[in-house]
């Protein structure tokens, strides 16, 4: 039996492999990592809702303000306009026909609809308040205010991202990277999907 417990390592004979020469674009990875964390947080909220519904007999299901459905439509529509904007931006940067004004127009439209959505959410809060439903009135109200507020903060973050994209597209020679545009759009679409999910959570009784 050999006295040594293991063999010396083998040397790699091949030339360096692995990472390619493609320029690294961490935003492409970072956005998915960030979305995973956000999804996990909302999964935690969801589990809290499920446990809380079963823990007491004080759960009073509220009728959600109708403006939420309008807000939902606006947010979904803004995802569509952002997709158009993404195509126009790519076309403009590659010089394939679209103008900067077209790209900016669609981006600004998306930004505007995002602002309308946040304002609409605030209007929904005001409506609940006028009905005497406050944060601590009942657990469903608590979760409604909490989830809409946390989601709205994330949407505001997305609006910041959109503003950044517009700013980077504005100079004579745009400094916007494709990965930044893509990451912003993935985030925005995720906010839309997340909102539809949250609407179902507060609207339907789990």
């Amino acid at each position, binding site marked *: 039996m050999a*006295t*040594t*417990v*293991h*063999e*010396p*390592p*083998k*040397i*790699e*004979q091949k030339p*360096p*492999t*692995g*990472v390619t*020469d493609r*320029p*690294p*674009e*961490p935003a*492409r*990875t*970072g956005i998915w*990592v*960030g979305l*995973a*964390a*956000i999804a*996990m*947080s909302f*999964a*935690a*909220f969801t*589990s*809290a809702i499920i*446990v*809380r519904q079963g*823990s*007491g*007999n*004080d*759960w009073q299901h509220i009728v959600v303000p109708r403006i939420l459905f309008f807000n939902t439509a606006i947010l979904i529509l803004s995802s569509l306009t952002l997709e158009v904007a993404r195509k126009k931006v790519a076309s403009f940067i590659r010089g394939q026909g679209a103008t900067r004004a077209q790209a900016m127009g669609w981006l600004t439209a998306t930004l505007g609809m995002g602002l309308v959505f946040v304002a609409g959410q605030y209007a929904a809060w005001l409506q609940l308040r006028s009905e005497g439903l406050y*944060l*601590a009135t009942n*657990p469903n109200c*608590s979760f409604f205010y*909490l989830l809409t507020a*946390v989601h709205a903060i994330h949407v505001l973050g997305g609006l910041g991202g959109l503003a950044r994209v517009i700013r980077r597209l504005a100079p004579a020679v745009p400094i916007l*990277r494709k990965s930044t545009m893509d990451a912003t759009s993935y985030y925005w679409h995720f906010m839309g999907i997340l909102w539809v999910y949250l609407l179902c959570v507060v609207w339907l009784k789990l």
Partner: protein
Amino acid sequence: MSQEAAIAHHGPPTSFLRKHVFSVDHKVIGKQYFALAIVAVFIGMILSWLMRFHLVWPNAALPGLQWLSKVGAPAGVMTPEYYLSLLTMHGTLMVFFVLTNAPFAAFGNYFLPIQIGAEDMAFPRFNMMSFWTTFAAFVVLMAAFFVPDGPPISGWTAYAPLSAVGSDAGPGQGLGQTLWGLSIAIFCIASLLGSLNFISTTLDLRAKGMTLMRMPVSTWAWFITSCIALLAFAVLLPACLLLVLDRIAGTSFFIPAGLVISDRLQPHSGGSPLLWQHLFWFFGHPEVYIAILPAMGIVSHILINSMRRPLLSHKVVIGSMMAIGFLSYMVWGHHMFVSGMNPFSALVFSFPTLVITIPATVLTLIWLGSLYGSRLQITTASLFSLGFISMFVSGGVSGFFLAQPSIDIYLHATYFVVGHFHLVMGVAAIFGIFAATYFWFPKMSGRMMNETLGKIHFWFTFVGAYCIFMPFHYLGLAGNVRRTSSFVYDYAQPLIPVHKFITIAALCTGAVQFIFLINLLYSRFKGAPAPDNPWNATSLEWTVPSPPPWNNFGGKHPVVYHDPYQYGVEGASGDFIMQNSPEKVPVRS
């Protein structure tokens, strides 16, 4: 866009503030995390001294303690409630600001980018925000010492409903507990930003030739830890938000109906205290691995260097760490065997708890098997690495008992658990931090630490830690309940001499840590100049000057040709081959 332009995140710092305070350089940020952890660990240690002192000399006044809190320690003798305040702050400081910050955020920040051949983190500004957010969390937590009722008394786990109802639950449960909740929420945001950076950097910024399997095991450990931290802190953040709302906004997430505390009916209804425990421990158990996994990687990295040969299997080590990370999400309920949850759930959580010992055992066997027959170079870093294995095994063995609900029900509220988690999580991770400090200090500061002082520090700490924490197991088996500041029951009286022994050991072992502090500070300014590669190591951090320039590789992009640990290769020109060396060596048949 050229690769150079894409990688050049930022230019050299131009002002004092940009260079030393609000720096986006991952190395400065790593050192800032380390400094914060040092401050936190000494505060935490002094708190433990105060607790140990009070336990065995309950009526002796500690001069100056009344300065810290007139209410909590009138005339220098602490009240039972203030003992719990110190206990809470000790646990919170140690778990969050030491065991998370030092091995993961501090050393990970400094060395992960260099070990993969990157110029900086993927998102340097996020990185800076991450540290300063952590610092803000620290300030908010420390502020709890200075509010009228003092720090919270509900422990670092802040169990609801006592943590949720406000000052009716006792001194410190007012503003102090709110500050605790806010501090931890802020800390979560910082950790999420940090994890995002670690993951993106590892996946996107590796040098040419640095395949995933060529990453050093320490980088793997930080990467896996960041994946765990990303999902764990993403759950603790909502939990803290719900807790703070219960406290300040009148909601009832965690507070049940009809709860009477301090003769007052609490104006809440229908909440679930168990919900807090589930959310907290869903974070809390992975947190144990956030503390220990980086230490596992660091210790492996150091031992390989000291043995001058790789571990038995690089792949199995990485696979075991991944398995631990994955399983860490399935075992949180083993902290709740006595919580009143469904007893069948206990069985469900007991099984994966026992399963997770398999990859942990595999790791231990690989360390021991690799050490067997090796001619280990005895340095302070390798001694602390061996100490880590010793503490991890000693603390881990008691975990087998606690994983079984029927045994845990007896032991859960006793000092047995205190001994278990201090050894396996606290001391083991601290030994990993010490090993990392002695190993990487030359690279970080450009100066060597004093090895003789280091070895004295090791031996006193090693023996001292066992003297403190092994007797805890005996106390627990004897039924000594934890979280109490005095021994009022007759059956506990014979145990007081054991407590005195532990207290003296704690005071002495704590005092020894000042040798480390003196060594650290003295070496920083007066230590012998460090060469670029003092340990004849192979990974990329040793290819750059000590300390590295602001852009790590001086604007060049390293190319990696080898696996991370090419030691003792037959036919090579030397005892080791660095990862970026283009030297070709015949493959051994």
